[in-house]
């Protein structure tokens, strides 16, 4: 009984780590595309993506897992950059730049990292508890 609970714990934490992994992937996409400008006038630059989480009741085990709900796009305004030499610049010499702020992405990355570590620590704790239980037989 207790063993079952602990084994399910591992699965819950793994789902949390997977969700944070997806979040980190999306963050890296944003950072990598922070300078993806349009190629022609009137074109749109890269639009920032955001991850939302949702908790999901796993029917088979009856526990609250976590999963990535949907990767949505950030609908905030694009930045404007003055660069008349750019092929996509408008009549005034401005070119649209992605709505990605590297500072926001970095703090988001830290948060994902912390949550990942927390889940990892739960797995470590559960593992040592399982080992103690098994150790009773010795």
């Amino acid at each position, binding site marked *: *009984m*207790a*063993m*079952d*609970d*602990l084994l*399910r*714990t591992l699965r*819950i*934490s793994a*789902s*949390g780590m997977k*969700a*944070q992994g997806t*979040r980190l992937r999306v963050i890296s996409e944003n950072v990598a595309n922070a300078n993806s400008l349009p190629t022609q006038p009137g074109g749109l630059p890269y639009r920032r993506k955001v991850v*939302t*989480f*949702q*908790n999901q009741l796993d029917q088979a085990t*009856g*526990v*609250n*897992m*976590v999963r990535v709900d949907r990767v949505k796009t950030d609908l905030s305004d694009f930045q404007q950059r003055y660069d008349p030499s750019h092929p996509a610049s408008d009549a005034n010499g401005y070119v649209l730049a992605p709505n990605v702020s590297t500072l926001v992405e970095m703090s988001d990355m830290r*948060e994902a990292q*912390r*949550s990942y570590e*927390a*889940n990892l*620590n*739960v797995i470590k*704790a*559960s593992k*040592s*508890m399982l080992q*103690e*239980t098994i*150790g*009773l037989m010795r």
Partner: protein
Amino acid sequence: MDLNKLSLFGVLKGQLGWLGRRQEVLAQNIANSDTPNYKPSDLKAFNFQEMVKTQQMQQGRGLKTTSPMHFAGTRSQTSPFAEAQNTAPFETSPNGNAVVLEEQMAKLGETQIQHRLTTELYRKHINLIKTAIGKGR
């Protein structure tokens, strides 16, 4: 001799079950520490007598079979330990999530130490019985 009839073994077994279940609840909270509108929950404190009472109550439930052709029916296994959602959290983030990671990690450490204590007590008790049996093993 049924070892579970010795009260200490019964209590320790119940405590181990409670700790395992609590670990599961805490893992749920931590995994959902970034889920919007998620409220953390925790188990009510372990009480051996209450656990025995709920287990006895649950054994009486289920479908009655009046003929050998009847199926017993399946009943979803419910945990004998009561869960309680934290209605007054320390803080709630703008997205409605009320999990405080530090609090959950502290509870996790507590659970781990209690588990070690319980398994150690179990082992000591076994040794006690081994001593009583004597060396002629």
